[in-house]
């Protein structure tokens, strides 16, 4: 049947193939180096403290990342609580009622806004880092959720309490110094005079007023008259007004730092004495974005929206380690079985396909490290399954090759025809799997099911790399072997290919 196609050009081993072979060997070598650069299965925490940043980054980028389900840890999904707005008619009777309605609607809009969630994410990130969790991941998901991943935290309850707590806001006298945003400082709040004088290792800055003395209803942003520049407005209660008036009278021209959880957010200069408790921050190169951010931080003292835990998953370290060990064993056994079967069933091409499969495995792990892909338990299963499936393209090709051989075609032409004819089915079928992966990925991302997402990514990488290994790598190997041992192959087709060539 296949004899109808007799017009294939016979391809001899050309320079192009040698170059390709060299490139494949090089690629496999680089992949192997990346794989072995650091332990194949290492935990995030394996990066030792105190290394130079470049070196730490190198180690991290060559370390396989394990998901929380494999290394143990906690994943939490926090959701911004949006207060339902009351629509009752009685509210419209008084101006206060209307104002209250407008405010609630505004607050809900702000809570659902991207900017608010990003501010919340940054604050949580700071707090998590403050806990000493170095490789935590804090992400905004969708319109009103934040995912916090804390790998290997021994006490997730306490960590969560810290994440959710209200931050502490202070207005601090910088003693005339210029403190850039992000500086972590010590302040006098809550300390006795004796304690302050006992601190000699660092400067302690005097707290002027605290967030307790702010009136949240008076905080907002507005365009400055004439210039239209953004401006942050804030108001203090009588106690705060008194303290601020007293301090600002003698400190005109000096900065007053806004400090959240001991970290400087902004340090505006006092232009004039603030005696009526109503202050504004403007000037510099402040953008609307920054103004909004500062206003949000001031208004809520900390998290711009109340966040509640809607999902919490904790995996103890022993369970994860056990899963890793078992999956490694299962993977090696599975891979060996596939190699053995391919060798027995397809003979020489099977051996070459097995070699290509090894290169596939090497490349996959290198890619996981470089991208980087966080390997979850279903991800491991997807990876192992993709090893079984990676040979599918080879099987399609070899079956085709055998058909062409049985139809009486010459060996060299059969090899090329096998690859040519199998191509459309390989391409179409793999494309459909990639499309499914895409849907899985989008699905996983939309619900923060990092397990599902991880599985989709590993499967998609597997399909893509398998097309390279099963087609390009195997074909180059086969051509090289044919180029070197062609006549020998022709004589021993029954043993080496499993098909007896009928000699005329």
């Amino acid at each position, binding site marked *: *049947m296949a004899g109808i196609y007799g017009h294939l050009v016979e391809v001899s081993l050309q320079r192009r193939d040698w170059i390709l072979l060299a490139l494949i060997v090089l690629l496999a070598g680089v992949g192997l180096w990346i794989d072995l650069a650091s332990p194949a299965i290492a935990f995030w925490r394996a990066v030792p403290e105190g290394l130079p940043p470049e070196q730490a980054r190198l180690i991290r980028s060559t370390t396989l990342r394990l998901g929380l*389900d494999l290394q143990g840890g906690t994943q939490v*999904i926090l959701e911004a609580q949006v207060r339902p707005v009351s629509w009752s008619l009685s509210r419209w009777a008084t101006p206060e009622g209307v104002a209250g309605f407008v405010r609630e609607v505004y607050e809900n809009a702000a809570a659902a806004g991207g900017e608010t969630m990003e501010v919340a994410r940054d604050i949580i990130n700071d707090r998590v880092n403050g806990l000493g969790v170095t490789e935590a991941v804090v992400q905004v998901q969708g319109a009103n959720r934040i995912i916090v991943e804390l790998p290997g935290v021994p006490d997730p*309850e306490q960590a*969560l*309490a810290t994440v959710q707590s209200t931050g502490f806001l202070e207005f601090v006298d910088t003693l005339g110094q210029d403190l850039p945003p992000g500086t972590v400082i010590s302040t006098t709040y809550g300390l006795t005079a004796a304690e302050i004088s006992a601190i000699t290792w660092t400067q302690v800055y005097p707290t002027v007023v605290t967030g307790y003395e702010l009136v949240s209803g008076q905080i907002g942003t507005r365009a400055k008259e004439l210039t239209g520049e953004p401006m942050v407005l804030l108001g203090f209660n009588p106690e705060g007004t008194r303290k601020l008036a007293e301090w600002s009278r003698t400190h005109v021209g000096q900065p007053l730092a806004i400090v959240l959880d001991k970290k400087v957010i902004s340090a505006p200069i006092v232009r004039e004495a603030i005696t009526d408790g109503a202050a504004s921050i403007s000037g510099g190169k402040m953008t609307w974005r920054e103004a909004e951010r500062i206003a949000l931080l001031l208004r809520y003292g900390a998290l711009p929206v109340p966040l509640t*835990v*809607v*999902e*919490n*998953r*904790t*995996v*103890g370290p*022993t*369970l994860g380690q056990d*899963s890793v060990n*078992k*999956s490694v064993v*299962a*993977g090696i*056994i*599975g*891979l060996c*079985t*596939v190699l053995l*079967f*391919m060798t027995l*069933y397809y003979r020489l091409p099977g051996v070459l396909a097995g070699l290509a499969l090894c290169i596939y495995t090497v490349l996959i792990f290198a890619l996981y490290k470089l991208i980087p892909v966080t390997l979850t*338990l*279903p991800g*491991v*299963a997807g990876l*192992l*399954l993709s090893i*079984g*499936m990676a040979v*599918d393209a080879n*099987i399609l090709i070899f*079956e085709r090759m055998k058909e062409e051989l049985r139809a009486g075609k010459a060996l060299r032409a059969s090899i090329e025809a096998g690859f040519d004819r199998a191509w*459309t*089915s390989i391409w*179409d*079928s*793999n*494309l*459909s*799997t990639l*499309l*499914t992966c895409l*849907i*899985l990925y*989008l*699905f996983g991302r939309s*619900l923060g*099911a990092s*397990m*599902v997402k991880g*599985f*989709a990514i590993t499967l998609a990488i597997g399909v893509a790399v398998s097309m390279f290994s099963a087609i390009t790598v195997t074909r180059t190997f086969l051509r090289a072997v044919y180029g070197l041992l062609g006549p020998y192959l022709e004589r021993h087709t029954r043993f080496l290919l499993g098909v007896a060539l009928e000699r005329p």
Partner: protein
Amino acid sequence: MLHLTRHRYLYFAISALVILPGLVAMVLSTVRYGTPVRLSIDFTSGSYVEVGLPRPVESEEVRAVFLAQGLDVASVQLTEGNRVAIVRTQVIDMATKGRLMEALRAAFGEVIERRFDVVGPSISQVVTRNAIYAVIAASLVILGFITFAFRKVPHPFRYGLCAIIAMVHDILVTVGLFSLAGLLWGWEADTLFLSALLTVIGFSVQDTIVVYDRIRENTPRMRGLRFEEIVDHSLTQTLHRSLTTQLNAMFVMVALLLFGGASIKQFILVMFIGLASGTYSSLFNAVPLLVVWENREIPRLFRRLMGRKA
């Protein structure tokens, strides 16, 4: 050439025999639990607590500790020689969890926290909705893709639709058997089950496309032959590949089942059944259905049945 499509109604009957118990299980499950398969907390909200205990325990002891904390216990499951307890209960906040762990330590000694999941109702609703969307989206994308990829053969839409029918077959087999396992052993569908199902869908279509590709290639070359014969040739030619590929996937999955961790056993088993069903449905449902359609057998069958009645 093997006359594989000749026995097409036998293949359909075998499929029906496998699907039917699953359908019955799904009905029973709906009566008993309200859903065709038992759902895990991923879909229903609640807590999953898995703890390692220093000594073998009775499930009543564990239940008592939870009840003492004022928690409703849905189920207590003991594994690994009664040294590991899996408890399904209501949504627990962090403070309650702290108290619960203390109570467990007071009752049993050194308790190891292996897994602790809490899913709130707002999350589980989103998961359920998106799961349905994901399956529908996957079906539509695949239908469109096949219709496009086979635009050069006559009736490309048939190919797409028959592939989708085969896919629905695989979903029914997998979900049906899972439902049965839910009734017998309390298996619960979680997001992992969903990933397995979606993978099955992907590979089911992959298998179908390989055979379709051969029909597409053979159609212009075998112009004199009847469609049924072309299909038989194509099936025979791809049979080796289908079985060999299936065998390789089986090797890996069996290795995972035998040597892999306990937490993915269900996932692998679902995949195992699904992939086997996928290969079967590609060869013995999707492709013979093309022949049934081409020969217009359904209206004929329908007429014959009606005629007999009259």
